[in-house]
């Protein structure tokens, strides 16, 4: 029983550290993406706590499937670009590892066209039954039929889960 208890503690600690790391890194990657498009990150930073609260809650309960950063033309509301960060979870994690392939992200974002006149928003795709989080509400993603998808690859790797990045441009 004592050994079992130790294993349980280890697993929950690795999971908790992984989820905090993933939430923080999603924020970081979205900020990198905003800045690479020449957009002002101030609006994002102002609601960063709300974004983090949602990410932390839904990741902890494995409800978060994908976090999206949508960049839209301010006038027409046509989607100019979208970053998708798709999550995969590891059951009973034990490997205490946390890394972000920031070089891969920056390489993918290099040459991003400047998107003056655009605005951005964060949208999440959740599994059914996800709890409400303050500051978040229902919405729908804009069409990306006119955009091309680029598979950037695995950009966040932790014992408790991984994140795959896709870019639509």
């Amino acid at each position, binding site marked *: 029983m004592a050994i079992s208890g130790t*294993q*349980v503690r280890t697993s*929950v600690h690795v999971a908790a*550290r992984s989820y905090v790391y993933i939430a923080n890194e999603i924020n970081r990657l979205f900020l990198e993406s905003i800045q690479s498009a020449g957009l002002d990150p101030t609006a994002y930073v102002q609601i960063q706590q709300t974004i983090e*609260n949602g990410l932390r*809650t839904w990741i902890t*309960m494995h409800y978060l499937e994908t976090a999206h950063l949508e960049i839209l033309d301010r006038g027409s509301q046509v989607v100019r670009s979208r970053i998708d960060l798709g999550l995969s979870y590891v059951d009973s994690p034990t490997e205490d590892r946390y890394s972000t392939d920031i070089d891969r992200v920056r390489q993918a974002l290099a040459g991003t066209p400047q998107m003056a006149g655009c605005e951005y928003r964060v949208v999440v795709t959740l599994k059914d039954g996800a709890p409400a*989080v303050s500051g978040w509400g229902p919405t729908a993603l804009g069409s990306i039929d006119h955009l091309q998808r680029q598979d950037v690859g695995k950009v966040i790797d932790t014992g408790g889960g991984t994140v795959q990045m896709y870019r639509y441009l």
Partner: protein
Amino acid sequence: MQVNYQVGGDRHTYDPGTSEDLGDITRGIEEHLRRNHPELAGRDHLTEKIADGLLNGLAGDGTDIELGDLS
């Protein structure tokens, strides 16, 4: 692991058991709170507070989870 919280100025503790799934632990704590403190039933975003407390406690290698005042 022990979960500490306050309701109406009174301090309470709860043992969430041996599950290693943070989602299950979160749901278990929420069920316990709604069952034992009906005054919290209408509180929005209780899950958010529980998940936040769990991550803050466990990510720092602790075993005690502090949820604070839930009133």
